[in-house]
């Protein structure tokens, strides 16, 4: 089978985001989505530190320490962008104004529970940032993650073993193997990568999957 690499995953997510959407891209893998948004399609990126209309990385030497994204990387502002303070920024998130949040994950459960902030290890120092706000606040939560852990275990699970970021909040999962919708009656496979059968995906995933007519 042809597993998707990180850029292919990002491009696949980008393809599904319609014109005019307001979108927050989480730190890490989701940030890559910005590089794959189709040219000429207007999509407005939100960064929770207080900006809408985030543009591409500035040219070397053009960085402005007062203009960064939530990952603390220098960014630019598109024409039509705006600034606001932190309470207003999270009011925007919590108040369900964002169309999509794209988040990384350790695990997603069949019920759509998300675990992405804390390994739960005894010695681990916890840090949550805006993850819980985004998980509960965006109209649609899209998760991007590898399908399997390095040990080959499924990250799509019956119940999350890691501490939750949010309960029943994930709408769709994009992995390097498949796209899966989380619905009240279970997990629906929307797409599978070339060369991978539904049965093999089912075997790798462990929890029950439903086959869509459009699935390979």
């Amino acid at each position: 089978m042809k597993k998707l690499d990180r850029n292919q995953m990002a491009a696949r997510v980008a393809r599904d985001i319609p014109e005019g959407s307001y979108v927050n891209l989480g730190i890490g893998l989701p940030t890559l989505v910005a590089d794959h948004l189709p040219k000429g399609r207007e999509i407005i990126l939100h960064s929770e530190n207080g900006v809408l209309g985030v543009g591409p990385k500035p040219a070397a030497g053009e960085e402005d320490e007062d203009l960064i994204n939530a990952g603390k990387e220098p960014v630019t502002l598109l024409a039509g962008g705006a600034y606001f303070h932190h309470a207003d920024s999270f009011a925007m998130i919590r108040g369900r104004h964002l169309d999509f949040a794209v988040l990384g994950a350790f695990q997603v459960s069949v019920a759509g529970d998300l675990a992405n902030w804390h390994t739960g290890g005894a010695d681990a120092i916890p840090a949550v940032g805006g993850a819980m706000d985004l998980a509960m606040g965006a109209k649609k939560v899209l998760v991007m993650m590898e399908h399997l852990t390095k040990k080959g275990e499924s990250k799509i699970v019956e119940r999350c073993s890691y501490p939750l970021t949010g309960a029943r909040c994930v709408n769709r999962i994009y992995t390097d193997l498949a796209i899966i919708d989380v619905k009240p009656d279970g997990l629906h496979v929307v797409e599978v990568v070339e060369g991978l059968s539904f049965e093999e995906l089912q075997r790798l995933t462990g929890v029950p999957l439903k086959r869509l007519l459009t699935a390979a």
Partner: protein
Amino acid sequence: MCFLKWGGCHNGALPMIDKSFASAEAALADIPDGATIMIGGFGNAGMPAALIDALIAQGARSLTIVNNNAGNGDTGLAALIAAKRVRKIFCSFPRQADSWHFDRAYRAGEIELELVPQGTLAERIRAAGAGIGAFYTPTAYGTLLAEGKETRRIGERDYVLEYPIHADYALIKADRADRWGNLAYRKTARNFAPIMASAARCTVVQVREIAQLGALDPETIVTPGIFVKRVVRIGSSLRKAA
């Protein structure tokens, strides 16, 4: 796949966001009977006069209106009340020297009034936009306006529990917009508009000017376009008449 709802949707084919509408009539065409509508403005400052006129012409009935007042004289919100379109009103200061249409409807039992202290009205609207489920405010504790409401002592003070006010539509006025729906206001005309924009599913804005994208200084954009669905430019002659 289209997850989006309540969009402008009048120009879906063009590969560009454009929230501008050709007329107030077009921007309000889909308001159904029974809708909850926030109307911005404090006095004439920030009052979206052209949108209110269009709402009267549009004909929707049995409306719930959220506004600081309950209409003045014979125009605007007062005319909407006179036309018997308003079932209920949330406001802080209904009784004024020239609120005769409201006064009559209220005394006749035709209109329900939920009287809310002005700051609580503002905070309830803000809470709706900010996804807050409820909040405790010290305002009105121990008064008639807190009767029957849940209260709680927190630290040294007593508080009243208040819930958000959500709306289907907000009709507001701003000074300048762009095609993304970003808004800049002028002086005290700002008043309720930014919070109402955040609390409604479909915010419609009357503006003096629609500027090129990028022409508004990002530091002066008070309402980012994420809160705005539809923008209508109203000529300055109408603005003067407001």
